[in-house]
C-alpha cells in the first residue's frame, strides 16, 4: 500500500507540475461550457439581406419597413438590378434577397393576388429555410393587416407543452455531451500519452523493475486522472447549475456513480491504446481517431443519430459516450432513477469489462 502511495504521489507531481497541460485539462470544460452556453447557437438574427424594390409603392415600402424592424434581419443593401444579386451573394455580403415586382400594390388590390420573390443563398440549407420562413411570417402578418376582419371558424387550437426544457435553451442538449467529451478526453488521451511517454523515455523499465506489481503501476497512473476527472465533473456541474441555470433534477449520487463508470471505461481504453502505440504522437493520434472522433460524431450530442445513415447508427452503439449521454440526460435532465437507466448501465459495464480485460491482457503480453 505504501508503495502504491508513493507511486501515486509521483504521478500527481508529474501531472500537476505540467502547467501547460493542466491549462488544457481544466480549460477544456470551461471553454466548452462558455462557448456552448453563451456563444454558439443556431438562432438567426441580424441576418444581412438585400431588397430589390421594383415597385416602390406603399405595400412594398411597408413590408420592407417591417423587415427592417425585425430582429432577424438587417437590410444591408438596396439593389437596383437583379444581376447585382449574384455578385452580392458571391461576396458573402448578403444571405437573402427580397424582390418586389413592379405594380406590386396595384396588383394586390385589384386582383387580390401578388407575389414576392425571395432568393436565398442556400449554401447553408437550414439558414436559407429559416430565413425564408421568417420572411413568410412577416408577409403573412402584413397580409393579415390588410384584412383584419377575417374571423377564422373551425379552428384546431394546439396546446403545446415543452418538456424538460421549456425555455428551449441550448444547454440541456450539450452539457451532457460536454461531460462525456471531457471525461473521455482526459482519461483516454492523457493516460495513454502518459504511459507511452514513460516507455519512450525509458523510465517505464525502471518502474517495472521495482518491487511494485505492474498492475499497481497502472493503477497509480490512473488515479491522478480519475481525480482530475472528478474535479472536472464537479466544475462542469457547478457551471451548468450556476452559470447556465440548468439544475440537476435527479440524484447527484447516481450521476457521479455513472460518471465514474465512464471514467473507468475511458481509463481502460487509454491503457489499451498505450499498449499498442510506440510513440506519444501515435498515442495521441489513436486517442483522437479512436475516441474523440466517434464521441463527437456518434454520441448524439452534436448531431442527431437518427438522421445518420444506418451504418453509422449501428456503429454508434459501440461508442460508450452514446450510452453515457442517454444516462446523463435521463438522470440530470429528466430526473429519472436507476430503473430507467439500468439497461444502459449494464451495457456500459459490459464495455468497461471488455476494455479492462483486453487492456490488461495486452499489457501483460508486452511485458514478457
Amino acid at each position, binding site marked *: 500500500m505504501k508503495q502504491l502511495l508513493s507511486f501515486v504521489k509521483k504521478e500527481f507531481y508529474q501531472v500537476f507540475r505540467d502547467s*501547460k497541460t493542466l491549462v488544457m485539462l481544466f480549460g477544456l470544460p470551461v471553454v466548452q461550457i462558455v462557448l456552448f452556453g453563451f456563444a454558439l447557437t443556431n438562432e438567426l438574427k441580424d441576418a444581412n439581406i438585400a431588397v430589390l424594390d421594383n415597385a416602390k409603392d406603399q405595400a412594398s415600402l411597408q413590408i420592407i419597413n417591417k423587415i427592417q424592424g425585425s430582429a432577424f434581419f438587417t437590410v444591408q443593401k438596396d439593389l437596383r438590378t437583379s444581376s447585382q444579386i449574384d455578385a452580392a451573394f458571391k461576396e458573402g455580403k448578403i444571405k437573402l434577397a427580397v424582390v418586389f415586382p413592379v405594380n406590386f400594390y396595384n396588383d394586390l388590390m385589384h386582383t387580390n393576388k401578388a407575389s414576392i420573390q425571395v432568393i436565398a443563398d442556400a449554401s447553408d440549407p437550414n439558414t*436559407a429555410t429559416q430565413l425564408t420562413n421568417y420572411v413568410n411570417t412577416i408577409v403573412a402578418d402584413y397580409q393579415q393587416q390588410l384584412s383584419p376582419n377575417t374571423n377564422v*371558424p373551425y379552428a384546431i387550437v394546439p396546446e403545446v407543452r415543452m418538456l424538460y426544457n421549456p425555455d428551449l435553451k441550448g444547454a440541456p442538449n450539450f452539457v451532457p455531451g460536454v461531460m462525456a467529451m471531457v471525461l473521455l478526453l482526459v482519461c483516454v488521451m492523457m493516460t495513454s500519452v502518459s504511459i507511452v511517454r514513460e516507455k519512450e523515455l525509458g523510465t517505464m523499465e525502471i518502474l517495472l523493475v521495482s518491487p511494485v506489481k505492474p498492475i499497481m503501476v497502472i493503477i497509480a497512473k490512473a488515479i491522478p486522472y480519475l481525480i482530475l476527472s472528478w474535479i472536472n465533473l464537479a466544475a462542469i456541474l457547478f457551471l451548468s447549475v450556476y452559470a447556465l441555470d440548468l439544475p440537476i433534477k435527479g440524484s447527484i449520487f447516481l450521476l457521479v456513480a455513472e460518471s465514474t463508470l465512464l471514467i473507468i471505461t475511458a481509463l481502460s481504453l487509454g491503457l489499451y491504446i498505450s499498449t499498442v502505440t510506440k510513440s506519444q504522437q501515435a498515442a495521441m493520434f489513436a486517442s483522437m481517431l479512436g475516441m474523440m472522433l466517434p464521441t463527437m460524431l456518434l454520441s448524439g450530442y452534436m448531431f442527431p443519430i437518427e438522421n445518420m445513415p444506418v451504418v453509422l447508427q449501428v456503429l454508434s452503439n459501440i461508442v460508450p459516450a452514446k450510452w453515457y449521454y442517454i444516462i446523463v440526460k435521463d438522470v440530470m435532465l429528466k430526473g*429519472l432513477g436507476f430503473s430507467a437507466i439500468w439497461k444502459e448501465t449494464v451495457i456500459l459495464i459490459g464495455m468497461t469489462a471488455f476494455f479492462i480485460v483486453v487492456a490488461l491482457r495486452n499489457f501483460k503480453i508486452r511485458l514478457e
Partner: protein
Amino acid sequence: MRPLFFLLQKEFRQIFRDKGFIGRLFIAPAIQLILLPMAANFTIKNINIAIVDNDHSEVSQKLSDKVLSSGYFKLAGYTDSHAKADKMIENDKADIVLEIPQGFGQDLIKEGNKKVAILVNAINGVKASVGFGYLNGIITDYNSEIRMEMIDPKRTTDFPTIDVAPSFWYNPKLTYYIFMVPAILVSLVTGIAGLSAAFNIVKEKEIGTIEQINVTPIKKWQFILGKLLPFVVMGAVVFSFGLLIGWIGYSIVPVGSLITMYIFLLVFLFAILGFGLLVSTYAETQQQANSLMFLFMMVFNMMSGLYTPIDSMPQWAKLITHLFPVSYFIDVMRMVVIKGSGLADIRYHILYVFIIGLVLNTWAIINYRKTT
C-alpha cells in the same frame, strides 16, 4: 541556400520514414471526410411521434394520416392511453406526442374550435422547435382543408393574398454535404499542418537536436523555413486529396476556380504554420504541445463557423473568431466551392489572413531564439 537544401532533405527523409505518416496523411483524413459529413447532417427528420387518439373518428383518423404521410415523422406508437404516451417520451421512444381528445370530430364542427395537446421533448431545443413547427404546419394545413369543406369556397379568396415564391440558389437540393465537406476539409488541413508542425519542432527540442542546430552556421530563418516548408507540402497534399475525396465520394465539383482555392491555401498555410511555430516556442515537451494545440483546435472547430454560424454569435465571440485564420478559410472554401466566388470577392479574406500570418510568424520568430 545550401544549408536550407540539406535541412529540407533531412526533414523529408525523417517524415517519410515515420511509419504512421501515410496513415496520418491519407487514411485518417479520408475516414473523417467520409464519416463526418454523413453525421453532420442538421436537417431534422425522422421525428418519432406517438399519437394518442381518444376520439377514433374519421376526423382524427385523417389528421393522423396527414401527420404520418408528411415524411417528417415516424410513428412510434398509436395508443389511447395518455400514460403510455408519457412513458414513451420518458424512454426516448417518442420525441413528440399528439393527443387528440375525445369527441374531437364532433365538437370541432359544433363549437367551432377544439384543442389538441402536443407534448414535446425539448431537451434538444432546435429539434423541438423544428419538430413542433412541422406538426403545427400540418395541423394548420388540415385546418384549412376542413374549413374549405365547411365553408363556401368562394369566400376564401375574398381577401388579398401575397404569394411568397422562394428560390434556393447554389444548392437547390438543400443538401448539407456541399456545405460541410469543404469546411471539414479546412479543419483537417489545419490539424494536420498546424499540429504536425508544432509537434515536429517540439520533438527536436525535447530530444536535444535543436541545440546541435543552434551551434551550426544555420541561420534562424533557414531553420524555420526548413521546418515549415515540408508542412506546406503536406498541407497541400492533404488538401488536394480531400478535394479528390469530395469529388469521388460526394460528387462535389467546385463551382469556383481551383487556382483561387490554392492561392488562399498558401496564404492560410502561412498563417497556420506560423501559429504552429508559435505554439512550439511555448511548449517544452510533446505532451504540452499536444495539450495546447488540442485546446486551440477545439476552439477553432467550435467557433469558426464550422457547425454553427458566426453571424449568430454575440459580438465578443465574433471578434475572437475573426482572429482565427480558420474562420476565413472555411468561409472562402464555402464561397468558392458552392457559389463560385473569385479572387476579387475574397480579397479581404486574403488580406486579413495574410496580416494575421505576419503577426503570428513575427511573434514566433522573436520568441524563437538561438541564444538564451
